[in-house]
């Protein structure tokens, strides 16, 4: 992997934000809307429940913020790729000496930068608006954040593979990938509260132990290390599978000549 190549690809995306700061609005808009809705729901529940539960229910806001880390990571990866599709730049990239891993690394870096921006804004607004302090998660925040980002990247790679293979035909589907997973990821409720058939599936998703861990930390100040270990292990597996899928799709696309006739599906 050549860092200067990754750097050049990242620089291309940064130029975009520099030229059109309007793009930053998109980074903030939905997260803030989500935050306000879930923040108000939390206030409503707090006012109508016991003081104990009221303190605990703050986890809804935490869940929203962490969910956004995952969702934004997936989106950041896909959007960098789509940017090349929309601007008919894909062929220039594919005939340049850019390795697949370098291209992916650049999209990850962009994904990472985008989440950090969103995360900071959400953290500040939730602190001021709803008294939820994301730092209550203490150092646990770091592995939580990291795992959700890794999982977001893996999902982003899957979405990108879908775009690459089927083009515009799957654009809305590819955006929705994280939402197929959301019901199983125990974002807003515990695994034990799910119907029993869902529970084994929930434990196959790397985000599940993160959200379970988050609730543990908010309640007891501690999360079990085995949850984190599970999250990292599942993420390693998912990233590997997503990478294999991506490589496979790239192969198919070259074999079928789809790279050069992108909008035909």
């Amino acid at each position, binding site marked *: 992997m050549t860092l200067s*190549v990754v750097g050049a*690809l990242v620089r291309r995306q940064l*130029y975009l934000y520099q030229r059109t700061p309007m793009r930053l609005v998109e980074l903030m808009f939905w997260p803030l809307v989500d935050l306000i809705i879930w923040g108000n729901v939390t206030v409503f529940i707090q006012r109508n429940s016991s003081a104990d539960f009221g303190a605990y229910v703050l986890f809804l806001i935490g869940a929203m913020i962490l969910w956004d880390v995952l969702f934004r990571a997936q989106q950041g990866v896909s959007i960098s790729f789509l940017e090349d599709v929309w*601007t008919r*730049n894909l062929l220039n990239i*594919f*005939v340049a000496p*850019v390795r697949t891993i370098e291209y992916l690394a650049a999209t990850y870096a962009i994904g990472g930068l985008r989440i950090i921006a969103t995360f900071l804004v959400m953290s500040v607004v939730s602190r001021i608006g709803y008294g939820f302090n994301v730092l209550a998660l203490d150092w646990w925040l770091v592995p939580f954040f990291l795992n959700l980002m890794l999982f977001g990247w893996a999902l982003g790679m899957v979405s990108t593979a879908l775009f690459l293979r089927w083009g515009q035909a799957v654009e809305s589907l590819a955006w929705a990938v994280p939402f197929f997973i959301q019901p199983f990821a125990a974002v807003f409720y515990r695994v034990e509260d799910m119907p029993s058939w869902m529970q084994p599936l929930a434990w196959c998703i790397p985000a599940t132990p993160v959200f379970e861990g988050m609730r543990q930390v908010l309640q007891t100040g501690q999360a079990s290390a085995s949850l984190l270990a599970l999250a990292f292990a599942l993420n390693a597996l998912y990233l590997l599978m997503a990478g294999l899928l991506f490589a496979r799709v790239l192969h198919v696309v070259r074999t079928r000549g789809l*790279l050069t006739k992108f909008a035909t599906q």
Partner: protein
Amino acid sequence: MRSIEPLSSREVILEARSLTRAFGGITVLDAFSFRLHRGESLGLLGANGAGKTTAMNCLLGLTTPSSGDVLAFGLPLGSHRIGILRRTNFSSTYTALPGNLLVEQNLRVFAGLYGVPDPARRITGLLDLLEISHLRRRVTGELSAGESTRVSLAKALLNDPELLMLDEPTASLDPDIADKVRRVIRTVQRERQVAILYTSHNMRDIEEVCDRVIFLHRGRAVCEGAPADIVARSSRRSLEEVFISIARDGNVIDASPEVPAS
């Protein structure tokens, strides 16, 4: 001093061995073979749909051939793609540089991708060469077709390529600019000994730029030689007439035009 050895005795830069490509059962490139030498410029000619772009896509690794091999700088493309692409570049009227960046930003990004040393100087030099220095701070997507063609060409020359593939680089240029662009291509070819693979539907272009041409007809090479030789060998008056009779009948030189299979 430049040597006066014939082009064909020079190092082979690009070689296609029996390249074949089918799409959905239809063969659009059929056992196509050729060699391109250092400092040589080779034109691919043929009617719309003859397979020129498909051939280039296979040679660039964008499309995998159904069978056959591509070697560049003596190395198989499949296993040495990145190393080969570093020494190669490509421009086509049908791709664009991101329209939402400035010309200079685009060139900077690609200079980074190709690992160009001292990019600022290189970019200034190329913009001068192509007479588009005034476009430096313009938004790429706002340029006219001819202006963006020249910007793409600047991108294609960034890495001082040894192998340059140009798919209809003069397609949207006015005669004056087309003439300048041909001159630039000729200049880099002579001075840098670039091997060039070129397609165009403009016979003027071909006669000026190409040392040798290959006519493709329905994916098969049907005629090859220096433009002037081909005209002389045929009973036609110009390359344009040769083009038309190959496009219509598939052949022009042999007495018996071959009937295309199936």
